């Protein structure tokens, strides 16, 4: 591994931070425009009311799925050795859900009423269920991340008693893992069901979307965790990774992708048999229409087939470059799937005239303001992870974290 010279590294770090800050400032400005002028500044319409921001929201929640799956693996299946990886995943999860929250605040027409779902319950609504689960799970993630924040050196020096308390949350990790698993299983699939229950949109109206959403989320969530760990290890010395752990995990990801491809195949195939107004057009949009590049190249070839081959083949999996490429492709494929799912239903306009099967297509391209504010949200995610790597040691497989934390509880002032 080639690491940059220390002074060069510092400059690179500053440039990286500066670039991200610029993107965040631009994003904040765009968000300000959205809040002051209203959603008229977007290219969303009554025909296509959900677009880029919903994709960011769905994708960032999905790539956070590494947190619940790895925590469940460590604390419920007893795969203790993956604990340091679960730690990274939990931190990424907290960032991902925060990003989702930001994009939702932009997307709803009345961000000042974001709390209404918590007070006014419509238990019949999947969106209500998702809102409640996401809110509760965000709280779980905050608790799960307490021991991570306790690693912050400055805080540790100033308030050792506080960090010791924060570190103590590690004791609740198994309970939090159970709660997190339940909440995540619910809302990760319900996010798909939000689309799947709508009778009025024949392309979406099927039970499979929720299943596909959770399987793809688990694969991409773990992929992002492993990818981010490996990338961090190539860029900074602050990171220690245990490659054999990550290698095992990527092998497993390869098999999840196979399962996902299997479901995806049957899901798509059953839709090809008969003509169903709206549904057939939705599928055509994916296989031959405006979304076909996204579908065939982004989702199927690069998002599934190539990563499966690279990850299940021992030779390519062992080479960090190919492994990282495959993992990045999985994440890209997931984003493409979320984008395509949202649009393939919305771009089809079904007539309500009696006896008229006329189906029309509409179009959507995000506006500059949508893109800039979306980039700001992404930049926030990168910034938070970079800071976590540098100051909170979120990627550290070398130390037995359990042991280190127990020591911290008994000797609050101890730092290394």
């Amino acid at each position, binding site marked *: 591994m080639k690491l940059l010279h220390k002074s060069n590294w510092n400059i690179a770090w500053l440039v990286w931070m500066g670039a991200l800050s610029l993107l965040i400032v631009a994003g904040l400005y765009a968000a300000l425009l959205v809040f002051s002028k*209203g959603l*008229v500044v977007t290219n969303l319409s009554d025909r296509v009311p959900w677009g880029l921001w919903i994709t960011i929201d769905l994708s960032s929640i999905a790539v956070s799925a590494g947190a619940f799956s790895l925590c469940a693996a460590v604390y419920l299946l007893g795969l203790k050795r993956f604990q340091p990886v679960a730690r990274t995943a939990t931190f990424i999860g907290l960032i991902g859900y925060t990003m989702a929250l930001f994009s939702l605040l932009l997307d709803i027409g009345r961000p000042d009423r974001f709390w209404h779902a918590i007070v*006014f319950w419509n238990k019949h609504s999947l969106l209500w269920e998702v809102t409640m689960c996401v809110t509760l799970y965000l709280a779980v993630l905050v608790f799960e991340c307490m021991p991570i924040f306790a690693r912050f050196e400055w805080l540790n020096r100033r308030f050792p008693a506080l960090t010791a308390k924060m570190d103590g949350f590690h004791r609740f990790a198994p309970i939090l893992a159970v709660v997190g698993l339940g909440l995540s299983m619910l809302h990760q699939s319900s996010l798909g069901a939000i689309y799947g229950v709508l009778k*009025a949109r024949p392309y979406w109206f099927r039970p499979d979307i929720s299943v596909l959403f959770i399987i793809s989320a688990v694969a991409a969530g773990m992929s992002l965790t492993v990818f981010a760990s490996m990338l961090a290890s190539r860029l900074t010395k602050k990171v220690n990774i245990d490659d054999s752990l990550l290698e095992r995990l990527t092998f497993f990801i390869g098999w999840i992708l196979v399962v996902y491809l299997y479901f995806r195949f049957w899901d798509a195939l059953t839709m090809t048999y008969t003509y169903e107004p709206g549904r057939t057009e939705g599928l055509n949009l994916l296989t031959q229409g405006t979304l076909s590049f996204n579908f065939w190249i982004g989702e199927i070839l690069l998002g599934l087939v190539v990563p499966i081959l690279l990850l299940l083949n021992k030779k390519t999996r062992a080479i960090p470059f190919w492994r990282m490429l495959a993992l990045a492709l999985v994440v890209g494929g997931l984003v493409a799937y979320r984008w395509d799912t949202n649009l393939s239903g919305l771009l089809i306009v079904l007539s309500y005239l009696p006896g008229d099967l006329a189906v029309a297509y509409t179009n959507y391209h995000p506006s500059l303001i949508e893109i800039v504010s979306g980039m700001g949200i992404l930049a926030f995610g990168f910034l938070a992870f970079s800071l976590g790597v540098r100051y909170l040691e979120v990627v550290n497989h070398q130390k037995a974290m359990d042991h280190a934390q127990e020591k911290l509880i008994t000797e609050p002032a101890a730092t290394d």
Partner: protein
Amino acid sequence: MNESKLNRRDFLKLSAIGAAVIGGLKVIQYASASEAEAGLHQLAMVIDQGKCTGCGYCTLACRAHNDVPPDISWNEVSPAGQVGEKPVFIARPCMQCAKAPCVEVCPVQASTYRPDGIVMMDYDRCIGCRYCEVACPYSARSFNWETFDGPNPAVPEWGEPEVPRRPRGVVEKCCFCYHRIDRGLSLGMRPGIDPKATPACVNVCPTGARIFGDINDPESTVSQILRKRPSLRLREDLATFPRVYYLPPVTEA
């Protein structure tokens, strides 16, 4: 020993009382729910496509009375082919479905059923997530993408606003001019008969293509027409049970 026996008896007693209370509450809940479902009035609208000329007066009167911005139509009139030589139109208010997808999906219960069947919108509660818009099979809902603060071009020619303007960022739709119905009923008038208790679009229609009334009342005009003539509702295959009925155009004999 004695103590534990007493405890057991107490426990059983308490359980019995608890069960009775829960059962009683359920009965009360049931009774009130069924009363609410039935309602005193069940409002419905009949639109005669044979009479509709597509003039669009209904859309304009609706805009004025409900202070709807010019780029939104709660009540859209669009061409729907032709019968013989005559062009046919379809006017589409909110269908006020009995099983409304919008009510089912709203995360904050901003859309609700009224006992008389009107699907209501609570504009103070709506968070603007637009899930209802995505769920509605009739495109009957519109989002306020920007603030409507200019003068309403439909006012005063087509009527005066009777309800407050909706704020930016909420979804809005036709509610069968519930404010006219409620005020009319409180003054002893009958919806569908007295114009002041009837939706603006029904009153303004120059050809009398719209008929409004209570289908719980077998003597009302809507009940009589629906008994006499074949009618249809939009997207009946979706089982949303709309309260808007269409009389299909008949070829002139």
